[in-house]
């Protein structure tokens, strides 16, 4: 679909050309008839998004206003009255939710209803805690709120409900890790799995139904949220330095699978990019850390079974990746395995592991750059260049160079990256022009 401004400009130009009799009236009408529905579609879409956003904000304000009205006279009310009043927002919001489901109301109604239901659940639980002076941990409060709100996005498909639900689960997960109290980790893991399933189901179902922009937006949301949840869960369940390898393995797995999905399925192209990029970032940070020599000085000398499991998962992803010709990230997915081999040979006291890993990453990056040049792929080029830069960054900082030399080196690296991209774009456009000319001939 053409851009809104372009269609407006075209219609105005055609009207001017028609008035000057450059083209005849029939042609003007035919072109206008062709483009008018697209313009209306654009306008309807903008209106819908605007109304949906306003409805969500309105619901938030109404919910906040109701809480303030209660809060004003709160201390003068008896305890049972306070308890019943605490329930009232949830009952009203539940009524509105049922109304929206039964009548199959529009998007704006759903956004408003989901926002109201979520804020009502939070305020209801907060008011009950206040009425009975319930103390305790913030994570327990957030868990109850998460349980109360987790199904809302599935019943009332809405972006606001999805964002709020993910935010609540993340807040709960972070507060569990932050509480530093040795709770039952298995129970926490089961709770997390239950709470994470709903947003994933919502996301998978929404891929079939939603507009393309919404699919991409949902993909970014779920990719970032799941990365945060995975990182906090790993930090919670594995409390030693080995966890860095688990981040690396998770990042590699996400990156490889997103790449496979990108090349395999045309339909999910836009949706794979958020996973590719978040996976790449998740993979890159631990990859830099395990190239630093100091990392190995405090490392636990025993191999953690969870690390072996994660390395095997990354290996499985690498096999799938190689099979689907995803070379660079699949090669990086072998790194958790390399780390384990170095661990098994007890090389951590020698200082060699960091150098070995840097050498392998450097080779993969150089291979990637050559591959990018042969396949004319900008994505692979940038992917590999960033990997190479990570090696340069880590190895370069180990040396005793002055700040000025480092600054110059960084400028050269940056200029090299830009130049490589520039050359690639130029060659690609020249190839495209040649292909077009060949076709026209």
């Amino acid at each position: 679909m053409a851009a809104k401004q372009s269609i407006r400009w075209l219609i105005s130009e055609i009207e001017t050309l028609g008035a000057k009799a450059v083209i005849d009236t029939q042609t003007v009408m035919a072109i206008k008839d062709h483009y008018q529905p697209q313009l209306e579609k654009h306008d309807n879409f903008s209106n819908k998004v605007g109304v949906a956003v306003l409805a969500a904000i309105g619901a938030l304000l109404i919910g906040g206003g109701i809480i303030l009205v209660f809060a004003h006279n709160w201390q003068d009310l008896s305890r049972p009255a306070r308890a019943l009043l605490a329930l009232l927002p949830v009952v009203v919001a539940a009524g509105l939710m049922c109304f929206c489901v039964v009548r199959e109301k529009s998007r704006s109604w759903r956004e408003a209803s989901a926002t109201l239901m979520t804020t009502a659940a939070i305020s209801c639980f907060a008011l009950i805690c206040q009425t009975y002076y319930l103390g305790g941990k913030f994570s327990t409060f957030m868990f109850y709120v998460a349980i109360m709100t987790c199904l809302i996005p599935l019943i009332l498909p809405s972006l606001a409900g999805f964002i709020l639900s993910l935010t609540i689960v993340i807040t709960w997960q972070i507060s569990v890790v932050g509480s530093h109290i040795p709770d039952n980790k298995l129970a926490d893991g089961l709770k997390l799995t239950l709470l994470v399933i709903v947003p994933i189901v919502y996301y998978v179902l929404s891929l079939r139904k939603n507009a393309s922009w919404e699919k991409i937006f949902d993909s970014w949301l779920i990719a970032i949220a799941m990365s945060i949840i995975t990182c906090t869960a790993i930090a919670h369940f594995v409390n030693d330095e080995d966890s860095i390898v688990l981040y690396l393995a998770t990042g590699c797995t996400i990156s490889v699978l997103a790449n496979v999905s990108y090349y395999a399925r045309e339909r999910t192209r836009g949706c794979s990019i958020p996973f590719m990029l978040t996976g790449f970032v998740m993979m890159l940070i631990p990859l830099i850390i395990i190239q630093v020599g100091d990392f190995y000085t405090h490392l636990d000398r025993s191999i953690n079974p969870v690390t072996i499991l994660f390395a095997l998962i990354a290996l499985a992803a690498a096999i799938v990746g190689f099979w689907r010709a995803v070379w660079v990230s699949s090669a990086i997915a072998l790194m958790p395995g390399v780390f384990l081999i170095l661990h098994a040979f007890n090389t951590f006291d020698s200082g060699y592991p960091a150098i070995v890993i840097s050498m392998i990453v450097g080779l993969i990056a150089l291979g990637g750059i050559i591959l990018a040049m042969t396949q004319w792929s900008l994505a692979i080029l940038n992917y590999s260049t960033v990997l190479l830069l990570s090696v340069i960054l880590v190895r370069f900082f180990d040396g005793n160079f002055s700040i000025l030399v480092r600054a110059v080196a960084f400028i050269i690296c940056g200029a090299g990256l830009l130049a490589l991209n520039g050359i690639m774009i130029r060659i690609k456009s020249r190839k495209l022009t040649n292909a077009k000319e060949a076709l026209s001939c």
Partner: protein
Amino acid sequence: MLIVNKKILFAMVILTLCVTIGLPLAQIVRYENVINNGTSYKVKCRAYDPYDPFMGRYVRLNLSETIAEKDFEPIKNLNKGRYFYHRGFVQISTDENGFVKYEKLIGDNEKPISDKNYLKCSIHKEYQHDTESNKGAAKLRITVEDIDRYYMSDKLAKSAEDAIREVLRAGNENSDSDKLVYVELKVLHTRAVPMQLYIDDTKIEDYIRKQ
């Protein structure tokens, strides 16, 4: 709608309604039951005035007491050593003035007896040098958990903190001072609800107004 099947959608709506209304309702019923059928205990406390972004201003209660380790049976399966931190329950009764008396400590891996009242607590062993004179003088600090807040209006909370601090300071400086700061709890088995904060047997709200 994402879920096309009407039966599944209906079941999910019912489930959501049950959870969103049932969960807070269950909390209300549970704590009303404690208030109506529980036993009253007075627990001495200290307090200060913090703020919660979700629930507003409250007086933060600190219900902790130091006891001599030798007066209590050792807790089963407790991690041994000079220092420890453990979570568990303390069995409670009342003295002649209605104040709480700690009877027995149990770890959270043990099941509390159903007809007795307990407070959930954390148990810290206080540091003691292993010298001849210190033998048998090891102390445990019992801190009641989950009862740490008493909500008040914005205007009263700060005054409450000042009044409590004044009373506690007077108590420290003059051992004859008989003013006490305590909270009345209703306890039923292992659940407890703070009912009222008192200074010198006067409700804190009335005490502040009188001042």
